[in-house]
């Protein structure tokens, strides 16, 4: 395989991995706080349509990304009020949020279908961004670099800071955290809002990085892949980064292998398409076999918090 083709594959792979990385990173923080939000797909679609609309209207993809983050967070607040304040079932509410986001984005996006957009391109000088070799480092949208920064930031927050410790405590044992005076509900609100913002940015990657258009259902199920990825990564940011790129690699290699012809084409494409899910099931099995505290889910995941006193 030539170096040019390798670089081309890497660039496509990075693009394919970035939206699921954002969304999964947000969901990781949400789940670490003990909340299971299955509305990722809905929040991604909300972010995608708002990101498109604001970029289209203002011409600034930066504003589009910020707006997408706020839109995703706003959508997540619906979930937060229902599950955290009203203590409703998180699974049902999350699914409802996905349905809501799908419908809302379709309605809101009506005015924007059939309109092209410019991609959110690399901000490095063209000598670097379009250089045949250096583009593998400099040729990406700013969102890609931002996703790496966020991986480090989330790791640092969860592992090295006091707020991160509180967040994990809330996710592992909400009653204990409550009894020593931590605001469980407030922490979870913050986590859910962060998750929504990240899902919104992940959604905005679709019109800004991958395919510069808005069309209903644009994310085509990537929100579910992001949910699977959190489990795959065993709730660890660095493993999540690796997992996102592994999922992206599988999808990208499928297309490059098919386009190249040759030996890979004997693998049925349905098998390629199911690989992320198969990998997730495999990891779940492995987790179950060698259960230890580092690889299992936050203990309070999905349970409503109802303080006794």
């Amino acid at each position, binding site marked *: 395989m030539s170096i040019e083709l390798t670089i081309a594959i890497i660039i*496509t792979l990075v693009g394919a991995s970035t939206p699921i990385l954002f969304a999964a990173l947000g969901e990781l923080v949400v789940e670490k706080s003990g909340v299971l939000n299955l509305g990722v797909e809905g929040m991604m679609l909300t972010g995608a349509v708002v990101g498109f609309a604001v970029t289209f209207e203002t011409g600034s993809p930066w504003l589009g990304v910020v707006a997408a983050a706020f839109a995703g967070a706003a959508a997540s607040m619906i979930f937060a009020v229902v599950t955290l304040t009203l203590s409703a079932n998180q699974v049902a509410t999350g699914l409802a949020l996905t349905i809501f986001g799908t419908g809302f984005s379709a309605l809101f996006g009506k005015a924007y*279908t059939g309109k*092209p957009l410019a991609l959110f391109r690399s901000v490095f000088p063209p000598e670097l961004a379009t250089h045949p070799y250096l583009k593998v480092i400099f040729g990406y949208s700013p969102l890609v670099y931002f996703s790496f920064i966020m991986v480090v930031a989330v790791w640092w927050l969860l592992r090295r800071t006091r707020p991160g410790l509180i967040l994990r405590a809330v996710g592992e044992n909400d009653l204990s955290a409550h009894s020593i005076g931590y605001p469980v509900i407030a922490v979870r609100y913050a986590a859910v809002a962060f998750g929504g913002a990240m899902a919104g940015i992940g959604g905005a990657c679709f019109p800004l990085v*991958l395919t*510069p258009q808005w*069309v209903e259902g644009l994310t085509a199920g990537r929100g579910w892949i992001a949910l699977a990825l959190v489990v795959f990564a065993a709730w660890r940011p660095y493993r999540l980064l690796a997992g996102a790129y592994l999922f992206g690699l599988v999808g990208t290699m499928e*297309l490059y292998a*098919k386009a190249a*012809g040759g030996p890979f084409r004997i693998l049925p494409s349905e098998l390629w398409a199911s690989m992320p899910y198969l990998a997730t099931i495999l990891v779940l099995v492995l987790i179950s076999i060698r259960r230890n505290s580092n690889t299992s889910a936050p203990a309070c995941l999905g349970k409503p918090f109802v303080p006794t006193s």
Partner: protein
Amino acid sequence: MTLKNTRPMISRRGALKLGAGAAALPLLGSRAFAQKEKVKVGFVLIGTPDDNGWNYGHDQGRLYMLDELGADRVETTVVTNVEEGPDAERVFRELAQQGHDIIYGTSFGFGEYMMNVAPQFPDIKFEWATGYTTLPNMSIYNAKFHEGRTVIGTIAGMMSETGIGAYIGSIPVPEVFMGANAFHLAARKQNPDFITKVVYVDSWFDPAKEADAARALIDQGVDIITQHTDGPAALQVAEERGIIGGFGQGADMSAFAPNAHLSAIIDHWGPYYTKSVKSVLDGTWEESSFWGGIADGEVIIGDYNEKIPADVVAEAERVRKGIIDGSIHPYAGPIVDTNGNVQAEEGDIIDDGEFWAQEAWYAEGIEA
């Protein structure tokens, strides 16, 4: 899923027709056919009319039909985002129970669900787009998109510099095999060494994956790209990468790729829907299978991009006219497939219906 009802609206053309119809009425007297004053028409779509492609085409056909027949005589219901699964059966049944006179299912995968429902409502007409089986109250209709592929394949064969074209397929169904083969055979007439790479994305709708498939193909030498999916994603990548170009599928997509959009295969369902709904109004509807092509005006070749050289346009037009007068056929022999089997001898033609029913094969030079 959303329900959209169109409000009755009398267009100028419809009003004129109404007048003409009223004038002709006394002459006709009583007819044996059960004529109807007004019909309710249901459309079941797999996506939404905003997809700029397949569903857009059907919705444009619906609007054309409403305009032709007059919204005072036709009321339409559009059900969007219906999955090709058991839910489709519920949708067909509900539309039938709501008193629709004719119901169109506009995707291949709706067929089996429609076949479950149709026998329960013998007085209601059902029509299955791109289907393969009829019932006494269920017809099928389709368009010969592959004739359009023959025209754009001609352009691809003449304009490609690398001699490698791509066909991004959705799901491996007969329509897609037919399209890929027609495209490739036409391109090979212009360039005997032409290669067509077929890549399936395993979905009718996943724009990001389509775009990535286009990237994978362009990175490996493809300079002409066609797609058998519903949106402009691949064309946008063609525009971004500055390759020679691609083609709109289902509708003109030049707004998305002004430079790369060479032409388009446009679905024009309007005349068929008009004829079909009119036959319900007249009481003359019967079980049928219609497969219209370029000659019927159901498949239209869009405007040619200005950058296409005049001789290429002339050749494309020659092929298009040849298809209309019958002198050119998409599957004229000799055709050899990828396994070296002769599919058609010199001078033979594989009939469209015959091809549809065949087990899938690809012509020599297709990499799939």
